[in-house]
């Protein structure tokens, strides 16, 4: 064991170093920037600066190695973080694009009512498409509004652009809409502005093509002409569609030598396969002006 003299000397040495450190701390905090310790610090830095520069250059490869090792370790975590960010941003982008699409569609839907000739006072009920027919053969959609919202059978349904179909089944909170591209669909229509009337029915298997039939050959129909619902009405029967709802635009006319009528091909104005929002016209409304819808 150590004798007491050694122990005292050891403790004294420790006390001296601690007191010196605390004293320097106190002085350093107490003095101004031009004080003794600050001056010594600046002097030491000036003296060692060339040495530091040399060591710094000499150790660059070692520093790079540490940096490479550190980056390698960090890269894994950073990669995961960036992946999470990408996923998050993709989700946000998807939401944003969806919202933009919805806004555009809803604006067009609202704008549809302001087109010339569109029936007024139809009391439209907005609905979201919740079910879509997955094939081109069975053209129906389900919407999230039903009889509880005032929806009844055979009411016309419009979307951004124009007519999309009619209500064929209703429950309390939902309804089924048969589209104008369904095989069973037939809509009394009128070519604007010359007034030639006919029946629009689908070309089965091609939802982007409708056929306007029963247009006599004497009536001139040109490409780009708009076709709207005719809304015919007699004392006994009337079309379920009020007059003036845009249906499609003429894209081709097939004159048949042996037939009495022309075959007019239409492109539906509404995006039948991509609709998300529709409006059910719960009242027949009144057409005040049989004009040409806005382009």
């Amino acid at each position, binding site marked *: 064991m*150590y004798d007491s003299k050694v122990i005292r*000397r*050891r403790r004294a*040495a*420790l006390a001296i*170093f*601690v007191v*010196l*450190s*605390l*004293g*320097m*701390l*106190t*002085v*350093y*905090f107490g003095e101004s920037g031009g004080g003794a*310790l600050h001056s*010594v*610090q600046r002097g*030491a*830095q000036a003296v*060692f600066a060339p*040495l*530091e*520069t040399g*060591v*710094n250059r*000499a*150790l*660059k490869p*070692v*520093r790079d*190695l*540490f*940096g490479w*090792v*550190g980056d390698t*370790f960090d890269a894994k975590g950073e990669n995961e973080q960036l992946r999470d960010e990408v996923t998050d941003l993709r989700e946000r982008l998807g939401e944003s694009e969806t919202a933009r699409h919805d806004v555009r569609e809803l604006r067009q839907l609202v704008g549809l009512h302001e087109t010339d000739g569109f029936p007024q006072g139809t009391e439209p009920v907005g609905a979201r498409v919740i079910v879509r027919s997955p094939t081109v053969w069975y053209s129906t959609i389900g919407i999230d509004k039903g009889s509880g919202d005032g929806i009844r059978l055979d009411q016309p349904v419009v979307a951004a652009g124009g007519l999309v179909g009619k209500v064929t089944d209703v429950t309390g909170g939902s309804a089924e809409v048969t589209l104008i591209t369904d095989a069973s669909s037939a809509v009394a229509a009128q070519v604007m502005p010359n007034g030639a009337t006919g029946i629009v029915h689908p070309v089965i298997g091609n939802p982007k093509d409708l056929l306007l039939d029963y247009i006599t050959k004497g009536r001139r129909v040109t490409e780009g002409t708009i076709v709207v619902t005719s809304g015919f009405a007699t004392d006994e029967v009337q079309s379920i569609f009020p007059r003036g709802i845009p249906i499609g635009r003429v894209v081709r006319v097939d004159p048949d030598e042996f037939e009495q009528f022309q075959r007019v091909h239409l492109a539906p104005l509404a995006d039948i396969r991509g609709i998300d929002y529709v409006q059910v016209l719960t009242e027949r409304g009144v057409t005040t002006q049989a004009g040409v819808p806005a382009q």
Partner: protein
Amino acid sequence: MKRTPDAYLRCALLAIAAVLLQISGLGSGRVLGGYVDLAPLVVAAVAIYAGAVPGAAMGFGTGLLLDLLVGGTVGASSLVLTAVGYGVGRYREVRDPAHGLMAIPVGAAATLGWVVAFAAVSFMLDVGATVSWLVLREMAATTLLGAIIALPVFAICRRVLRPVLLVDPLDLRRRRRAPRDAGPIGLRGLEV
């Protein structure tokens, strides 16, 4: 350790080399969120080979040099490293460690003590500092790195100090390995 100019010179060279390497190269390289800290390792190595008082003196000198060159609060590092050097030196004097891998736990303990105590001093001196998860992670990573590089650092320090050491703990270990004057079961006085 012998009290000769040669001994002081070797210690001073070790301190200068450690501080220069620290501030010029190794300190800026980050691995696992921590950094290689040579100062506590060199102080601990001197303390483990030379004892408590040389360890405390080495800690004071290394800390002072570090504070002067880094531009930090003069006295803070020297206070903490004095404690580290003294503590490791006392451990050596009391427990007399001689295992070949003792550098690893000693290096880790010295680094941990240094980073924790220096953080405590910094928190006391700097107003508004808070203990964050980042600080704790840096402490843990620095301690781990200290443990990893402790063996080569201690070996270099031992090589530098060996000519001026009165007793080398590792030499004691070697002597224990070959007990020539012991009996067949390793106990004195039981020779057959």
